[in-house]
């Protein structure tokens, strides 16, 4: 766990790590929570030209505060244009125009498949989760998928009870065998480390530990025997600017949502 003395929280590190990998010419399909914070942080720092799309139909939106939902009025007010939801899924997502789709979930496995549907049997669930929403097709049609999730042994599991959205399936060339030409999950940004799929097996591999994290600490938060890259790196700590912009964004957001 990040000590308070580091000057930032683990969630901040996760969000900032996700923001850094976004490029100025990316077209991002944004989900609520950490992805939304990461995308807007990128837009407010190194990637001012990034195009943010929320599945509510808002294209090229530039919100001043983070939306609570994917359809807050702020998104529409600041968008280049807002289209109907069938068009969003047909022309924009299935159309292959999204370069980065952000996903998260309740559970992930070593091949970056995600579960947001149920824990326990589908017909008699122990925990009924919200379901897939846009995820099954975001996972298929975005050029690549970035995942943000906090680690934990109940979230990073050996076997998913339900595959809501496919990552690399059973690994290797599984995606290609299903006819997919997109890259699938290329990066998983957690609160403790960054993982990337092995180029061949597609098994998630830790490539970078966040400041203050150890192999053992990370392994304890994962339900499968975790692989580490030979050239394991340390994630650069958040810069003062990153922290400042992110915290100001969250503070504006808090003030806006508290009203009523």
């Amino acid at each position, binding site marked *: 766990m990040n000590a308070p003395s580091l000057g930032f929280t683990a969630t901040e590190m996760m969000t900032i790590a996700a923001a850094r990998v976004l490029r100025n010419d990316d077209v991002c399909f944004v989900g609520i929570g950490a992805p939304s914070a990461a995308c807007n942080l990128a837009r407010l720092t190194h990637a001012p030209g990034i195009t943010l799309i929320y599945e*509510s139909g808002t294209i090229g939106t530039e919100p001043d505060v983070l939306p609570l*939902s994917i359809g807050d009025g702020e998104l529409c007010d600041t968008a280049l244009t807002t289209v109907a*939801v069938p068009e969003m899924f047909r022309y924009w997502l299935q159309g292959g125009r999204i370069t980065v789709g952000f996903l998260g979930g309740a559970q992930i496995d070593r091949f970056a498949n995600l579960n947001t549907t149920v824990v326990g049997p589908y017909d008699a669930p122990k925990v*009924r989760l919200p379901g897939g*929403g846009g995820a099954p*097709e975001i996972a298929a049609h975005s050029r690549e998928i970035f995942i943000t999730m906090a680690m934990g042994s109940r979230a990073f599991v050996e076997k998913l009870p339900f595959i809501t959205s496919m990552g690399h399936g059973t690994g290797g060339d599984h995606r290609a065998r299903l006819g997919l030409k997109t890259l699938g999950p290329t990066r998983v940004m957690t609160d403790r480390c960054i993982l990337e799929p092995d180029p061949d097996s597609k098994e998630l591999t830790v490539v970078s530990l966040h400041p203050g994290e150890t192999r053992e600490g990370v392994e304890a938060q994962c339900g499968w025997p975790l692989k580490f890259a030979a050239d394991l790196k340390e994630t650069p700590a958040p810069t003062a600017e990153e922290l400042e912009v992110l915290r100001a964004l969250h503070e504006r957001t808090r003030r806006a949502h508290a009203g009523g």
Partner: protein
Amino acid sequence: MPAFLSLAEAIATHVKDGDTLAMEGFTHLIPYAAGHEIIRQGRKHLTLIRMTPDILYDQLIGVGAADKLIFSWGGNPGVGSLHRLRDAVENGWPHKLAIEEHSHAAMANAYEAGAANLPFATFRGYIGADLPKVNPNIRSVTCPFTGEVLAAVPAHRPDVSIIHALRADRKGNVLLEGIVGVQKEAVLAAKKAIVTVEEIVDDLGAPSPNSVILPGWTITAVVAVPGGAHPSYAQGYYKRDNAFYIAWDPIARERDTFLAWIDAHVMRATPADFAARRPAA
């Protein structure tokens, strides 16, 4: 031309026990006032269709109005679970709820196909996902040119669709603006459509020749309910009440707090109460 009715008349006349009912509004323009009227009138055995059930359907499910839910994402957006939906699915309270679960792409395409009077929708979907294993209404078609196998789902054809819109003119033409979701498709896919609006005006004031307008002759009944989308919102009229969405979590978590809330804010309330609930625009 649609009938201009009170909300009580519109629901009493056009929504029957056992109907398949779609209430749409993608975060924006969710027809809460109409949902409350359905609860007040005690409708039962409904099949509810909605991409994102939201608090609206949490309330309808919690009072036992629904036998079945057709949906693609059942959460409280940005907050967490829909506790009444979970209680119905996990514990069968107040009774067992049948579910037919899709992805957003499937639901949006199914509305589109319904509006287009097609029997099914096709799209490239569900690849490598488990939902087709548990939903027999996810099937496939094969492209007659390339041989590619694509996903297919039945078109949505609700008995009744209910949406909330910005305004209607005296002929019952209706204007939507902002995040328009699948509302136009939901109306055009349905046998009957009820539209609640913020106001009825002489001139719609559509800003563009391509504004999203539903002609009055596609609508069964128009009802003026100012504030009728609260705690959702109406672009240019009032904002989303995000604080209420956050407050709903503890209310819905327990059965007794939920029932007390329904009694106080639905059963003992009227559509007119929505006007007072609007936050500033």
